[in-house]
């Protein structure tokens, strides 16, 4: 085995960026960093070279719990047949005005 694979790799961090005030942070990629501070600095260098953001979150990748793709149906399909949860389900006569 060569030196690189025995060398301990820096942990992986997921990067989330708020592109402007009022918007949500959005996932944009990941960086390797030894600690949170370096993760922030690397995220800034890698993902915001053209004023793409005004705020960055970095989260250790292993701290994220994600839903499994195979659970997609049981998690999300029940919402598909509840069309009455949408405003367009209801007919309101024009005369009632804007609603």
């Amino acid at each position, binding site marked *: 085995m060569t030196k*690189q694979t025995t*060398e301990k*790799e820096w942990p*992986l961090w997921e990067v989330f960026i708020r592109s402007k005030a009022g918007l949500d942070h959005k996932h944009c*990629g990941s960086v390797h960093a*030894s600690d949170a501070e370096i993760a922030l600095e690397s995220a800034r*260098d890698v993902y915001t070279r053209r004023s793409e953001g005004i705020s960055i979150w970095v989260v250790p990748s292993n701290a994220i719990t994600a839903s499994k793709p195979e659970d997609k149906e049981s998690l999300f399909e029940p919402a598909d047949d509840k069309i009455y949860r949408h405003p367009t389900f209801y007919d309101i006569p024009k005369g009632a005005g804007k609603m």
Partner: protein
Amino acid sequence: MYGDTSIQKPIKIAEPTSAEQARLEEIFQQKIDDDIKIEPQEWMPAAYRKTLVRQMSQHAHSEVIGMQPEGNWLTRAPTLRRKVILLAKIQDEGGHGLYIYSAAETLGTSRAEMIEQLQNGKAKYSSIFNYPALTWADMGTIGWLVDGAAITNQVALSRGSYGPYSRAMIRICKEESFHQRQGYELLLTLSKGTKEQKEMLQESVNRFWWPSLMMFGPNDANSPHSAQSMKWKIKKKSNDQLRQEFIDATVPQAEFLGITLPDPDLKWNEERGHYDYGAIDWEEFGNVINGNGPCNKQRIANHIKAHEDGAWVREAAAAYAEKQQKKQVA
């Protein structure tokens, strides 16, 4: 070759070993056919994953090695304006490498593994970066032709089926337009300069034209596993299609610069609605890809040296993080 791995030995496509696997493969292909992107945790055929890891790691390596020919000119940029532009471009390339490494890691490969394969020669990178940047005009030509060819390729890749790769490509294409434009602007400046500057421009384009066309990879007839990549939408257009697109877009730009392109067979074909072009020297391409280009050894040696010179920084940062963690616990 950003979008092409056909110069290497093929990745075996395994037959499904069970009814369950055949069903999964069918669902997978249906998603691809319906233009639904594939995301990291989802089931995918082993060969799809392997093909992507190979292509993405090589793409990332190309970005990173591509910093070297330009880095060579940083201290000799003729003006401060040109120098800050060149610095920004090189920094982008480092960034692009990182976007793609990060996307490749979602497939279960590690950064360390990819770097190791680059350094031991198991992974390739674009043949173009094994040519030296001999003159200042090369900084313009690389932006115009090399980045131009890369954009042609990457626009197609941004519509690919693997979510993280496609998203990385969208970011890269947005940023890379600046690379091509700054290069063309640099060449335009030379084209209005002294006789020597005009000659430097023409000489540079003469050297980079054919290697730029080779960036798209072998002719379709010699690109045997392209078909599978197209079926999986890892690849959206064939090598020859992309090469033709690039040539058609570039010839008028060359005319505008007032230079010639070093191909006597290059001419507009009214019937096809495309430019015809001469035969590409595939022997040269093979030689350069397989390690015998003018700069292969130097590029890898530089990469290894930079990596090893940086080892103490990585170790120190890791030790610092460990110490801070212990303090917190105590």
